């Protein structure tokens, strides 16, 4: 399967997922989702006072998950910002059913382990429920703004560079960053649902907030002392984050990305501003704004709540025993060899 066909499959997926979520009848999920209370927009007037750490910071500590079935962008055909509780429940049920569905034996789609046997269906762990129809809240249509000319050119350049590098399984460097155990969706910033093990541990000490992402044990140590960003020459996969408290809200600004893990096509000059506000004992309101004039003509903002979940987080060493990557490459080389031999036989 080459990259281009993968991309088209991907597009197909998005479309299909949308259509299916609207039309296919739901089967009951394998097990009931253990969901935290839905994060409605906090009703004005109902004051929640977050607990404080010994040094007086609002306390965000504990284990949290951003696992969700709410898509980043609003599905086609949905026009409202919030589902009713019943509609939201229905949407989750459908999505869970899709996730738990068994594949047809003997098809390519069937070549995997049963996710539910390893607790990896989203419905088997805590979900950060929300009535929102999309995580994106601004623009108001729930969609990421259109990519500007500069952004399109960069996307085209990136695609051309990928094409020039050859097939996806030609070398390890051609494979997806997640498969290579370099970085996954959870770390961000912004921190996005990682599909499974979408868990975080927050620990605070005077002057610092630390966020451990379960996937590939990615850690963000966010200083709160108003220090400046490092020079432009310092570029990182997760950028460099600086935090401050605005009342009960932790505001974290991140720049200095290396541009190698483009978030939705962003450039290395992307700036992400995150806001964490504890709105209930078991809920953190997590909002982020993405700013990148080199990609979008306007900023956009999403809300993806973090729900309290159970610990502990077990070490997700990834690269060390990433046998799969060697198996895949070896498999590709074996297939090539087979084909070459067959071609030789054919020509004889």
């Amino acid at each position, binding site marked *: 399967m080459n990259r281009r066909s993968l991309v088209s499959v991907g597009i197909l997926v998005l479309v299909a997922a949308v259509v299916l979520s609207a039309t296919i009848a739901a089967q009951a999920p394998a097990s009931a989702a253990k969901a935290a209370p839905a994060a409605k927009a906090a009703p004005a007037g109902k004051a929640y006072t977050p607990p404080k750490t010994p040094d007086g910071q609002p306390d965000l500590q504990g284990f949290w998950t951003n696992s969700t079935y709410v898509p980043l962008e609003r599905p086609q055909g949905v026009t409202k910002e919030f589902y009713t509780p019943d509609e939201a429940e229905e949407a989750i049920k459908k999505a869970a059913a899709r996730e738990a569905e068994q594949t047809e034996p003997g098809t390519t789609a069937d070549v995997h382990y049963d996710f539910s046997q390893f607790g990896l269906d989203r419905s088997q762990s805590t979900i950060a429920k929300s009535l929102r129809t999309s995580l994106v809240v601004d623009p108001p249509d729930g969609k990421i703004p259109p990519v500007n000319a500069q952004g399109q050119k960069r996307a085209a350049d990136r695609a051309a560079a990928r094409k020039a590098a050859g097939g996806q399984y030609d070398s*390890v460097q051609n494979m997806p960053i997640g498969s290579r155990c370099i970085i996954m969706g959870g770390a961000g910033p912004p921190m996005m649902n990682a599909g499974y093990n979408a868990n975080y541990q927050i620990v605070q000490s005077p002057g610092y907030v630390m966020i451990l992402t379960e996937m590939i044990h990615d850690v963000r140590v966010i200083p709160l002392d108003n220090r400046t960003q490092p020079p432009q020459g310092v570029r990182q996969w997760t950028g460099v984050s600086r935090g401050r408290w605005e009342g009960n809200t932790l505001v974290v600004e991140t720049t200095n990305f290396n541009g190698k893990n483009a978030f939705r096509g962003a450039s290395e000059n992307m700036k992400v501003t995150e806001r964490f506000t504890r709105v209930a004992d078991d809920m953190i309101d997590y909002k982020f704004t993405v700013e990148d004039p080199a990609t979008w003509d306007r900023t956009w903002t999403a809300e993806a709540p973090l729900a309290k979940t159970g610990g502990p987080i077990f070490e997700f060493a990834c690269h060390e025993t990433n046998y799969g990557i060697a198996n895949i490459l070896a498999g590709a080389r074996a297939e090539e060899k087979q084909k070459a031999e067959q071609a030789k036989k054919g020509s004889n």
Partner: protein
Amino acid sequence: MRNRFLTRVTVVAIGLCVAAVTLVTAQTPAYRAPRAPDGKPNLGGIWQAINTANWDIEAHSAAPSPVLELGAAGAVPGGLGVVEGGTLPYRPEALAKRNENRANRLKLDPEIKCYLPGVPRATYMPFPFQIIQSQKHIMLIHEYAGAVRTIYMTDQTEAPADSWMGWSNGRWEGESLVVDTKGFNDLSWFDRSGNFHSDALHVVERFTPRSADTLNYEVTVEDPKVFTRPWKMSMPLYRRVEPNAQILEFRCVEFVEDLLYGHLRKQPSQ
């Protein structure tokens, strides 16, 4: 005249000796660390070892680089060793394996493959690490390979499974943070010289403030499958005092991919 001088010298000498003996025999460290908000010694900060333990925890001489192209940049600096008593108490068959590891270190050292460093090696890798201290969890965040340890101060359990960095439970003993770690796999090494352990490894570490900007780091290592008795190592750790000090990424996986998988790269068709 001379007599009086001698008397004075003797008195001074006695005073000095008594002071020295008192200093040496004193068990309690004189230093009391600043307190964290919960009243425990505050170990928060960015720390780093300055020694050659990562090359070889035993005493060793300077040696050439195992990689020709690296010349002096890849050569081994000599070191006096950090192991109490100087030599590791290997079982005979384990010593043979250590020597084999050492001879084949370019192929076998997990550090070369960007694997997680294990414990205690993470502490004395030539990279800084940060301590984020809360009441329930004390986090050790290492720059090398993004290694991270959670030290459970409450809700302590046994290791659910074996891992590279082990499963750490901690407690306070006076000025010291004592960390008890088990649940290791048998894949990490102690240094670049092939010193190794099995999955029976049990590490007890003591972090004790010794001045505003230094910690004493003492480790007791127990592994009956590899060593004939428990042994100790110790070293100071130094605070990175630069006001802008921070842990940067050392996401080394992509640096080693050609080393590990380059042979599986598609060859240009002939």
